[in-house]
């Protein structure tokens, strides 16, 4: 009783369950709306990773790959932290500037 009262007097930080509910909903609604099977999502993830990895070295630690809703649109959020850019990338993009021949 007293705790509830104190809770009301001093609302907890945004880490409360209100924020959790909202974030979980955004996630699940995006997946519901997209109607994309987990398998399809996973295969898309692997393909995108494959393409990106050709150019940069990714840090698998902080990697994020999920759907979310912003208003009435659904977005694919891919957060791919880069550890370092592969030297090959510059060469592939601009052949005239290549440092070393193959």
């Amino acid at each position, binding site marked *: 009783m007293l705790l509830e009262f104190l809770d009301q007097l001093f609302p907890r930080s945004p880490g409360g369950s*209100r924020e959790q*509910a909202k974030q979980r909903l955004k996630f699940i609604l995006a997946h519901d*709306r997209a109607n994309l099977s987990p398998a399809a999502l996973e295969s898309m993830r692997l393909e995108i990773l494959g393409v990106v990895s050709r150019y940069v070295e990714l840090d698998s630690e902080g990697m994020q790959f999920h759907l979310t809703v912003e208003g009435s649109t659904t977005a694919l959020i891919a957060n791919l932290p880069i550890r370092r850019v592969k030297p090959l990338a510059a060469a592939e993009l601009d052949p005239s500037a290549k440092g070393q021949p193959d």
Partner: protein
Amino acid sequence: MGRVIVITSGKGGVGKTTLTANLGTALARLGRSVAVVDADFGLRNLDLLLGLENRVVYTALEVIAGECRLEQALVKDKRTPNLSLLPAAQTRNKTAVNPEQMRQLMEKLAGSYDYVLIDCPAGIEQGFRNAIAGATEALLVTTPEVAAVRDADRVVGLLEAAGISSIQLIVNRLRPDMVTAGQMMAVEDVVEVLAIPLVGMIPEDREVIVSTNKGEPMVLAARPSPAAQAIQRIARRLEGEVVEFPKLAGLGESFWEKARRFLSQKVF
């Protein structure tokens, strides 16, 4: 032609039937002619919430089967002139009627009433398809809970697919104290997630249980409780009036209302 509005939610227990009974009564009290339709075949309850259960003779099923005229099945509410109930059959199940029959019936009602409010059953199966068949607008009811909001979102998709583009949101059973404490989603959270225009926010209110016990819509009370006032505001918004949404703190009982309730329970 009147407006045919389905009151739907996906999830059960969020307050569709209570809202239909009270919104219908509130609109009738504003001088409109209203027909409330129970589309929950096999699990009818709208008659009970309106206190009309003893006056049901025929139901929508007999009308559809041609066993009685529409006027014979409509139960007129004596407390609220302008308000009629079209009951659902209790004995048969949801497959007893089909969407086309419902559509024709709603069209007929829309010919003689300003508003036709359809109380949709929970779920998204046949009963849902029957209930939305004749509607051109929808009121989507949800509570600030993840399961209810998820189901509501699913229903939005189905309504749009059925060609019902006018969908307005009602967030029911809010607890202002919990929202303030960050323990319940606020109305703006639900609106943001569902991306549907808001037409009403109704606080959790113990008066709902009391009025259901009595079979007396709470909007008829001489001193309407917070939820009843919220529903009266929704009725006015449907009528096209611009009614401001109260601040969260003003949605619940005021200090004086609380004090009065406390005194009437404990002292007298």
